[in-house]
Every structure is written in C-alpha cells, then in structure tokens.
C-alpha cells in the first residue's frame, strides 16, 4: 500500500481552475432581493433619531425590532447585538438592513436614511479591561525575590487582516413557511446555525446552514459570519423572499474582525549563573468594541507565553481591553503569533544583554518530553526539536551565514525561530464544549459518504479526509464522497478552526472507517463516532492548570533577509522550515499550508500594515493593505518530520496554524542582525527600520 503522504490531485483543483466552483455570490435565485447594511458614522454615542425616505413597495427596513428572539449574536461571550438598538460602540457598526429587488435603489435608500446621533467621547486607549486572567506555574512571581538580575522588555504587535480572496457573504431564503436556510462563506456551519436559532427563537429543524465553495477564511469566517447570518435570517423572516447579503471588499475590510493588536511585557528573573529562574508575562490585547472570543485569544496567547521553552516558574496575566474600534476576532494562530514574536525576541534580547550566544542559550531551555508545560501539564509525546533544528541549520547553512552576516558591513541577516502549536480546542473544550460527532455512511453500491461539518476553505480537507477513508477501507478514492456540509445532512463535528480538523475530526473519521471495514459485508449502514478526550488529559479552565492541549505540533523557521541600506526595505532571500506535524496526510497539501502559512507569518512580521486613527481603519482595500506576492517570498524549502500522535489519523496532528506562528520572530531575528538594532515592534516596516537606524538601541 502507498504511504498516505504521497500527493494526489486536489479534489477542488479542476473546479476552481476552470471557474466552475460556485461561491455564494455566484448563486442566483428566482425573485432574489438585495440587502445592504446601513452603518454608523460615529465611533461612540447614541442614535437620537432616524429619518427614512419613503419606501417604494417591496422595499424593507430590517432592524432590531425585527429580531424575534435574543438580539445578541451567540459567539463565546455574547455581547454583540445583531442590530444595535441605540448605543453606537464603533465606527461602521451595523444599524439596519435595507432590502429590496433593485440593488441600485436599495443603495439609494441606504444613502438617504438620515441618522442623528448624540456623540460621546470615544475610547481608544487601552483602559477598560473586560477580561482579566492570571495563572502561575511553580513559585510564580515569588521567584523574583531570589533573582540576581532582572531583565524586562516590552513588545508590541499590530493588526493583521485575513485578506481572504472572497469577501464575506450569505444568501438566505425560506423553505416552506418557517424554515430559514442560509448559504454562506463560512468556517463553522453549526456556529451559524446555533446563533440563528437563538436570534429567531426557532427550533433546530427550522434553521439550515449550507456551505458553498469558500474562497479562504484564515479565521475571519469563524465567528463574524454569525452576525451577518443573524441579520439576514431576520430579514428573510420579514421579507419572505430569497435575499443576498454580500460584502464589498472595502466594507469587509472596515467592519470584519482582525488579529488583535497586543502589548506584551516580559520580565525574567536570572540567577548568578545567568540562568532563567522564572518569567513574569503580561499580555494586553485590544478586543475592539465587543469581547466576543477575545478572552479565548488572550488565554491561548498566555498559554504560549514560554514559547517552545520550559520555564519552571511563571506569573502569567493579561487583560482584554474594550475600545471603540472594530471588533477583533479569530485569525490563524489565535493569540500565538503575538506571543511568539514577543517571547522569541525576549529570549534573544536576554542573551544579548548577558553577552552570551543566543542560540545555545535558547536551545538550553527548549522543552523536552515530560517537561511541564506553561500550565503545568505534561509534554507527553516525544519532542524532536533538536533533530529538527540540526536539520534546519544544515539545509540553510545557518552557522556559517550567522557568523558572516554579523560582520559590520553586511546588510544581510539570518534568523531562526522555535515554536509549537497546541492542536484542537484549549483544555477540555473538545470534550465539554464541542463534543464532535461524525458519521460515515455506506451505500448499497459501496459508495461511502463522509458526513461532517468540516469546511474546505481551500486548505484541502475535501481531499485529505477522503484519502484517509479510502486508504483505511482500501477502496478507490472516487468511491468516497465528501459533499459540502449542510446542517440538515451532517452532524455537528465542530468548527473548522484551531488546527483541529484532521487531528480531531479526521481521527474520528479514521476510527469510523476502521469500524466500517470490519462490517464491510453489511450492505447499507452508518457508523457514528463521538469525541472522547484521552483520559489522561485533564485541564481546569478557571485555574489554567493541566494539559491545555492533547497534542502539539512543532516547528523551526529560518529566514534570510537582505535589508537595503538606502531604502531600508527588507528583501526575503530564502526561508527554510522544519515541521513535526505527526504525519503528513498529503505532502503537497501540507506544503500548501507551509508555504502559505509562513508567507502570512513573515508578512505579519515585516510587511502587513494596518492601523486606525480614532477608530478609522486607514488601509481599507487591497491597494493599501499590502500582502506579499510571490516576488516577495524568496525561495522556500520545507522538511516534514513524522512523529505520530496516537489519536490522529495515521498519527496526524495540526498543520494550519503551526506554519504561521513562527514567521514573524524568524524574519525579525534576521532583520535585527542585518541592521544591528533591537526590534520590539512588528510589523518591522522600512519606516520603523529607519526610525531604529536613527534612534534605536544597537543590537550588539
């Protein structure tokens, strides 16, 4: 039998290249109406009065009065209204929808609705804390009493925009009298369904969510689509016709969730032997106007606080701050990219301050099997980072380049980051919160159907899940069908997030396939599997104590740059990556994640700039929000290590986020070496590099 990692053609390749794939905006329905959102023009205040133009027949206003159930979008922390009743908490907050048959007319009505506000002073400083977390490991901060030396630095990260190819959108319609069906560009069909049930006060049977082709998501379609879906569901109930609600690119960039900006302070207690006794870590993130899932982002950031290192004593704390800005949310990496940048730079800066070799210093603290994690859980599985680092150094000629580039005249730099990513939901989330359920159905003609709610947004799950099933059942892959999820047909296998799909959902599907194989002679049957947490995994969400994740993927990124001394522009020359992802289910698909993830991660570190001025996002289109092209990425080489995890299919662990989280520190290490300055903030743009050249602290 072939090794499952051998690549096959991607299921969605032909339909996407030929243009036949149908995205939500391609769907046309008879009698389809158009909806456009009327939004606030202030960042903070109250609506005093709304005056409407005369509505022609067939045109509707849909607002908070049309919400039959709770006027709140079910996310994790439910504080986002479907339509605001009065209070305005950020610029472009949705107030109402205008719906009608002619889009030009709908646009005109939206423009002619006059809203008077009572404006209040908006808060953009980080002072209103809505969530506070704190946890210790070992002796916590008391270890600082024994310190011979304390080193402390601040780090700062900016917004990042998901920049998926396809903006957000839905089409909704009534089936029969009461049933609302929504087709949308989403990651989590059941998040949308459950949110709509609550808003419509509907029964489970009366809400259906279907996924069409999705043109990228990166976390941006995790929780935000629930807001649009809730609004549209209310409109469908009122108008009783099919309605399309598709965002324009600018609208999408101005109003949808982004990566949380973060400010992180690290303190290290060191002994006389210049060894780390413990860390104090403080992380603040800007949630924007709603909490939403920001608390979870903060917790994942804090859990990643020690990076790939074992630090025995920790005092970790953080705040989620509410500001009058666009709400931030899920984004590939989910708190980890901010923290990895900070912890990796901090380790380097400690070594520089102590005047010792930073690579040796960092390797000394690398986590090993059976070490305690930041939350005092245990790294149970083998950690092969040393082997991976050696491999990375060998293929990149790291040692030689590192020495050569440290010469004064050199404009080049090379940097290496170490990192891991916890796979699946944090703590007992998978077992208590998600409770994934999957089904595998065998037909009379031996066709096998994968029934899960996992979404293929381009990452390849439509290919890889089928591969797992076909390989286990030893049947041709064409006999395995994985249709787009439809909540009327598939069980809730959980959201397509948190690098969980192959490991958790695929693991369940793999176990279902094994059972199916045993019963293969039966003509027609369904196998159902429900997630069970491995018994040894125990975690307390309140105290942040125990095993935060069932498994960890590991990685090494090496980036080589040349910083132009005249224009201060960093040019990426080469990148090398080494990943332990348990087992590759398809090498080409893994490489797709590796190349794309690292590109997005590096760009987060030096290229992608987004900021707001008094709540106004300044980079609101793809002309001004710069993401890298192939010209900007340099040569990329990736090595995949196998280190199977017992509960993943064929040993697979998470891939999606791992490939992003190490990019920023690797590129910034390289830039620091190239310019011989310390960097404490990303993105490290040419403008920031110039500032550092003028006033920054020398690296050496």
């Amino acid at each position: 039998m072939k090794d499952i990692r051998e690549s096959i053609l991607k299921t969605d390749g032909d339909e996407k290249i030929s243009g036949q794939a149908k995205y939500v905006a391609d769907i046309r329905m008879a009698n389809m109406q158009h909806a456009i959102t009327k939004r606030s023009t202030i960042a903070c205040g109250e609506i005093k009065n709304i005056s409407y133009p005369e509505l022609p027949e067939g045109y509707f206003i849909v607002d908070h009065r049309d919400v039959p159930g709770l006027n709140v979008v079910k996310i994790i922390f439910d504080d986002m209204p479907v339509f605001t009743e009065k209070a305005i908490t950020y610029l472009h907050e949705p107030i109402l929808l205008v719906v009608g048959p002619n889009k030009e007319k709908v646009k005109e009505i939206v423009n002619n609705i006059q809203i008077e506000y009572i404006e209040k002073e908006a808060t953009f400083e980080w002072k209103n804390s809505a969530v506070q977390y704190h946890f210790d490991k070992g002796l916590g901060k008391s270890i600082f009493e024994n310190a011979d030396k304390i080193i402390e630095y601040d780090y700062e990260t900016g917004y990042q925009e998901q920049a998926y190819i396809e903006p957000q959108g839905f089409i909704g319609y009534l089936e029969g009298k009461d049933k609302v069906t929504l087709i949308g560009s989403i990651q989590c069909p059941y998040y949308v369904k459950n949110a709509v049930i609550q808003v419509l006060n509907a029964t489970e049977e009366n809400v259906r969510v279907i996924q069409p082709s999705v043109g990228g998501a990166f976390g941006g379609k995790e929780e935000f689509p629930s807001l649009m879906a809730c609004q549209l569901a209310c409109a469908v109930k009122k108008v009783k016709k099919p309605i399309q609600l598709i965002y324009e690119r600018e609208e999408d960039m101005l109003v949808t969730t982004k990566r949380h900006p973060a400010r992180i302070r690290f303190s290290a207690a060191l002994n006389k032997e210049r060894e780390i006794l413990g860390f104090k870590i403080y992380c603040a993130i800007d949630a924007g106007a709603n909490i939403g899932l920001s608390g979870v982002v903060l917790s994942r950031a804090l859990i990643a606080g020690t990076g790939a290192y074992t630090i025995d004593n920790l005092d970790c704390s953080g705040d989620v701050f509410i500001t009058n800005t666009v709400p931030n949310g899920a984004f590939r990496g989910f708190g980890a990219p901010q923290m990895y940048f900070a912890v990796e730079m901090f380790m380097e800066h400690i070594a520089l301050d102590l005047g010792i070799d930073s690579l040796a210093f960092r390797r000394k603290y690398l986590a090993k099997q059976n070490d305690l994690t930041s939350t005092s859980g245990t790294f149970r599985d083998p950690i092969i980072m040393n082997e991976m680092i050696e491999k990375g150094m060998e293929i990149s000629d790291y040692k030689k380049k590192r020495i050569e580039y440290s010469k004064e005249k050199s404009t080049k730099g090379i940097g290496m980051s170490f990192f891991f990513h916890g796979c699946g939901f944090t703590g007992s989330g998978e077992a208590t919160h998600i409770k994934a359920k999957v089904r595998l159905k065998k037909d009379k003609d031996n066709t096998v159907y994968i029934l899960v709610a996992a979404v293929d947004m381009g990452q390849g799950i439509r290919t890889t899940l089928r591969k797992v099933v076909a390989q286990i059942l030893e049947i041709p892959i064409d006999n395995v069908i994985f249709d787009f999820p439809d909540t009327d047909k598939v069980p809730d296998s959980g959201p397509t997030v948190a690098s969980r799909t192959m490991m958790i959902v695929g693991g369940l599907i793999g176990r279902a396939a094994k059972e199916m194989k045993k019963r293969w002679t039966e003509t027609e049957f369904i196998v159902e599997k429900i997630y069970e947490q491995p018994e040894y995994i125990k975690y307390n969400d309140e105290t942040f104590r125990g095993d935060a994740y069932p498994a960890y993927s590991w990685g090494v990124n090496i980036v080589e740059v040349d910083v132009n001394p005249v224009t201060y522009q960093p040019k990426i020359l080469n990148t090398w990556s080494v990943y332990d992802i348990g087992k590759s289910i398809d090498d080409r698909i893994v490489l797709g994640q590796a190349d794309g993830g690292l590109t997005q991660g590096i760009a987060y570190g030096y290229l992608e700039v987004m900021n707001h001025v008094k709540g106004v996002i300044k980079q609101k289109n793809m002309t001004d929000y710069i993401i890298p092209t192939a010209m900007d990425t340099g040569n990329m080489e990736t090595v995949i290590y196998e280190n199977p995890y017992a509960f993943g299919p064929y040993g697979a662990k998470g891939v999606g986020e791992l490939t992003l989280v190490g990019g920023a520190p690797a590129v910034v290490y390289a830039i620091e070496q190239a310019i011989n300055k310390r960097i404490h903030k990303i993105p490290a743009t040419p403008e920031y590099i110039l500032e550092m050249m003028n006033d920054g602290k020398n690296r050496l």
Partner: protein
Amino acid sequence: MVKQILPKNLSEVLELISKEKYRFCAGGTDMLIQNHNLKTLPIDFKDNIIYTFNLEELKGITEDEDFITIGASESLESILENKITPQILKDTILQMASPAIRHSGTIGGNIGNASPAGDLLVPLYLLNAIVQLQSLKGIRSVLLSDFITHVRRIDLRDDEIITKIIISKINFDKHQFVKVGPRLSDAISKLSFLGAVSFHEDKVIDLRFSFGAVNITVVRRPEIEAQYIYKTKEELKNSVDELLEKYSEYIRPIDDQRSNKEYRKTVALNLLRNFIEEL
C-alpha cells in the same frame, strides 16, 4: 444617466467634446477603480464618458531623428515591448503595477490621472515630455510639467483630448530608476527616484533628477541641475551634500496610509546620494 460613447474615430470625439463635457476612459485601470460600484452594478461614472481604447489615431509609436512620438492610448505593455522605446522608460514600466494592469493601462491615462504617485510621469518629466492636445480648434503642445498643474489637475480644456506624447531622443551614460514600493511588485509607490547623467571628457554635460510621490507632482528642478554642468565627476561627487540640501527644499512628502513624510524624504535623498556616490 451619464452618456457612454464608443466613438469610431478621433473626429467624432472632437465633435462630441466641442459640444458637451466628457471624461475619457482609455485603459480604465484608474477610471474603473475611481468610479467602482457595488458588486453586480454597472460602473458608477459621474460624468459622460468617451472610451478611447479603439481610436487608431491615438495609437502608434514612431520616431524621427530627434523625437519619439507615442500615441496616448498605447498600453504600458506595448510601450515596454516596442524596440523604439528608450531604456529609461522601459526600466520604469517594468516596475509598474502588475502584468494585467500594464496590459490595459495607457500612457495618456497615466498622464491624465495626474497622480503624485504616477510612476511613468517620473521618466517623462526627466525627458522633457511634451503632451499634444487636440480640439476642433487645432493642436496644442504643452510641456508635461506645465500640463500637470496640481494633484490630479491638468491643463486640459473641455474640448481637448490628449493625443500624443513626444519625447526627445536622448541617451545618458548612466541612468537609474528606483521605485520604492511597499512590496516588490503590483504596488503603488511610496516614492520613486530617477537619476540620469552624461559626461564628456569627465565633465558633466547632462544631469537630471526626478522624484515621484514626494510632492504634489514629480519634482524636477532644471535650475539645480544646470549648476552642475561642466563640473568634473569628482567635483560633482564632492558637492553631494550641497546637492541634497538644494533638493531638500522641494522634497515635501505627506503622511498617508502607505508611508510617512520622514521616510519618504530620507529615502528620496538617500537615493540621490547613492546615485551620485556610485558614479
């Protein structure tokens, strides 16, 4: 409703614009963006539009002994691929936008749009380009640097259309175009720099600099350039600080979503210094 006209020839255009106000849409790479509408709705033009892409009279790249004449509707791509085109223009076009935009965008459009960040304007200013305008009343030729009067403002009467761009045939001993964009391709310039110089027996006989995106339009100062004619290369190199100081006054960039004043100014002057020092 605005009118949208697809004319058969230039005389039809001249007739139309003599009677009523129109705007021109050549490649559309700026016009369609500036007038974009919601998805599925037609382009939201605010003025009457004449499409000029199929007018034969605005096509063609020709040369005589002294001049090269480029039709206003020639695309960046066809200018790039034409062997008559001077290298200095090719170097610029190669760094502009994306292949798709270069395929559609035109030289006349880049001039008519008069963006401070219009890359093609940088070599055209340096080459003393002349813009030829036509109306029923006749032909008018204007220096490009006079034609562009301000940010996105041009000296074009309502009854006129840009028909040709004329540049003198000059070869330089050395020229260097540097586009400083936020990424390596398909991006609007933060700033750009073009330097060109020729020597005769070690003396400067021609020296020109133009800077893009650091003022309301391209910065070109012939009176500063003239001060260094007949200097030796060594003298020119020795006066680099003074040269930078002179240009400093005219490099007045802005802060915006793409970059900031300080970066733009520092890098513009760095590029000038680098060009001189590497002679």
